[in-house]
Each structure stands twice: as C-alpha cells, then as structure tokens.
C-alpha cells in the first residue's frame, strides 16, 4: 500500500512543482493575511513594542493564517484528479483505496509545512516578533498541527470533491471538527511554548497527537466507502 501511496504523492508533488498554482496561491494568501493582521493591529493602537512582548497575540495570528492558507490548499487536493477523470484511473488501481488517502496526505502535508514556515518568516519580518528564540519548538508544533489538519482535510476534501458546492462544503465540514482537536490546542501549545510552560504545551501536544492518530485511522477505514456509488 505504501508503494502506491508514495507514487501518488510523488506524482502530485511533480505536478505542483510544474504548475506552482496551489503553492503560489497559498504563499500569497498567507502574506495577505499576515499583512491584514499587521495593519489591523496598528489600527487598534497595538504597537510594535506591545506586539513584541505579547506572547498571546502571535499564536492565534500564526495559526489563523496557517489554517486559512491550508484550507485554500485543500480545496484543490482532488482538482487535478477531476481533470480527464483521472480519479477513476486511481480508483481502478488494484490497491486499497486508503493508499489514495495516504498519498494525498503526504502531498498535502509537505506544502502545508512549507507554508507554515513561510508564515513564521512573515511574522518575524512584518510584526516584528522573534518568537523568544523558540523557533524550533514552534516549528515542531507547526509540523504536528499541519499534519493533523491535513489528515482531516484530505478526507473532508474527498467528501466534498463531488459536490458542486465544494468551496463552501469543505470548511463547513472541516473547521468545526478541527477547531477543538487541532486549531485551539495548537494555539494553546504555541502560547505555552512562548510562555515557557513546558507542561502545558505537552498536554496540548498530546491532544493534537491523539487527534492526528484518530483522523488517520478513521480516514483509512472510511476512505474505501467514500467512493462507493
């Protein structure tokens, strides 16, 4: 199953590198969101000195931007498969359909992590915020959180891919589930890391990790049935 999953992920990444459509859109979108936050903070009189000292404002900005950009990316997870009905050729492969899930998870997770790192960079440039030097732990949380978001998002994208309202349906399916399993725990964990609360961060990491396991296991179990007709 892993051989087929890797083949799918590799093909997706080759197509992404060739067209750069999805990645470029996500980078631009996250830049715009970061700038919008920056200007709105200025507007409300939250100035640089306060921003630099506030370890509670940055985590929501960081995660909101990552989640927005990742949701944008998830909208197109199956779009290349819809062209020329390539999805049928994937479904005709003599392999478990969970291979398609794992392949799409890998090919979504890699650009999401890259985007998350870009967002971190944008925050450091435009706010400016030095993450109290905790770049590695925050990057680790971004890796874990984006994995969980991708693990849920690929299944939600598969469910919504056949709908004409997929742009609306995807966030409607995803956000309520992701909110208390990935997004809020990720924000809390990032705040805890920036406030040097290791025990608090560990508790949140456990929630995110458990959510990741549940999303992957459930998705692999149900993915076969999503394509039944």
């Amino acid at each position, binding site marked *: 199953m892993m*051989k*087929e999953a890797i*083949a*799918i992920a*590799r*093909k997706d990444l*080759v*197509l992404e590198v*060739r*067209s750069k459509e999805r990645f470029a859109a996500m980078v631009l979108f996250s830049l715009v969101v970061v700038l919008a936050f920056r200007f709105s903070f200025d507007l409300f009189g939250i100035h640089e000195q306060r921003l630099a000292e506030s370890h509670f404002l940055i985590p929501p900005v960081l995660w909101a931007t990552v989640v927005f950009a990742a949701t944008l990316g998830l909208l197109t997870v199956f779009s*290349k498969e819809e*062209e*020329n*009905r*390539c999805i*049928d*050729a*994937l*479904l*005709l*492969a*003599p*392999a*478990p359909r969970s291979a398609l899930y794992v392949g799409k998870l890998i090919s979504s997770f890699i650009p999401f992590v890259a985007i998350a790192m870009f967002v971190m960079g944008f925050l450091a440039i435009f706010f400016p915020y030095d993450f109290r030097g905790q770049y590695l732990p925050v990057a680790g949380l971004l890796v874990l959180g984006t994995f969980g978001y991708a693990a849920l998002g690929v299944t939600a994208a598969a469910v919504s891919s056949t709908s004409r309202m997929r742009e609306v349906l995807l966030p409607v399916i995803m956000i309520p589930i992701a909110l208390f399993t990935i997004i809020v725990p990720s924000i809390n964990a990032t705040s805890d890391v920036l406030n040097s609360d290791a025990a608090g961060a560990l508790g949140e990491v456990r929630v995110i990790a458990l959510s990741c396991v549940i999303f992957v296991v459930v998705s692999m179990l149900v993915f076969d049935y999503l394509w*039944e*007709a």
Partner: protein
Amino acid sequence: MTAVLEIRGLSKSFGQRKALQGIDLSAGPGEILAFLGPNGAGKTTLLKVVSTLLTPTSGSVSVDGFDVVEAPEEARRRIGCVFHDFMLYDDLTVEENLTFFGRLYGARPSVPKLDALLERVGLLHRKVDRIATLSRGMKQRVALARAMLNSPRLLLFDEPFTGLDEAAAETLKSFLRGFAGSSGSVLLTSHDPRLAHSLASRLFILSQGKVAKEVPSERVPVESFVHDFREVVGGLP
C-alpha cells in the same frame, strides 16, 4: 475453460431510475463483445459496473473468476480500461503518465517494456511530450497503452472509435483483434453498428438498460444488423 467475464442478473439503479436491468452474459477468451444503443441506454454504466467503479444494485459480475464486489482488487488486476475521458494527466509526459500508472497498478514498466508498449501503439516518438500537446487520437493510444500495463485479461473500451479517422480506426481494430487473439476478451461500446459489426464477435443492442437483442455477428449480415439496430434505436444510426 473459465469465462473471462461472467455477468448474472445484473441490475443497477440510481435512485428510482433503473440504468441496467437483468443483464446476463459471459465472454470467453478471444471474444469481442460490442454494446450498442442510444444515449442513456446503459452502455457506460455497464462498463463502470464491470470495472468496479460502480457497485451493482443486484446480480453478480466476475472477472476471471473474481467477483467485482467480493474481490475488487483481484478483479481490477485483470482489467484494463479506456474510458471516454482517457484518465491521463495533461501536465505529465507520456512516459511519466505510464510510469506513474505502472507503479500504481503494481507493474512499473522497465524502459524496454515501456518503449515496446509505446512502439505497439505507435507513440514512441512522443514519449517525452506532455499529454496536453497530443491529439485526441494520440491520447486514446496512450490510454490504451496504460490499459495494457498490467497485462489484463479483459479490456473495457468506451466508444473507442469516437473522433478517430479511418486509418486510426483500422489500426485500433487490428490492435483489439490482436489482444483478443492472445486470449483476452474485449467489451466495448459503440454508436456505430457497422464498425461494431466489423469487429465484434457478438453484438448486444441495449435499450433502457436491458439487452433488447443479442446477435452473433458472423451469422447476421451487416445490413440486417443495421436494420435491427435502427428498429430498436428508433432512428438513423
């Protein structure tokens, strides 16, 4: 000898609409079966059920002895499909498409095998070209090469002659005869009774999801078959 394809009492419904009703047939090695009928007769639905893309509402379909519901992966291993949309990635080259699908179908072709396959469909010279740059007929040949990657026993072909010129149609016919000659079976759909008659060993006219007429092609002259077809379809083919 085991039938390559065995269909018993097959029905498929979409809600209240019955797309296929009580289809019974079997195809042995070397046979080419053509399904004809007007739009909406159930031809493509039949191919999709046999290919495992759709689940039968009732009845059974088995490919080389493997039931498409009970053992779909084994059945898929024995099927090659060329559908109307070709199922190829426009932004990948011919070679990349075939290598990818080869990996996916557990039959990653070696370079000589890939070249031989492309030679067979007459596209070796376009190996490094992207699919988007090929004509419809060429895309169909790449799709045919993809369908042959896993050395199938059963080839499913939806409207194979649509958009092909006479020479390309003749080439395709001889390819399909060659495939059937190597003890494979072909199940194809067509709108053209003359073309189907010239190729298939058995002809089925579908109407409203049912087999309205089954005809062994060598026993029925083409004009008589065209007449029967017009009668069922209710117009000029």
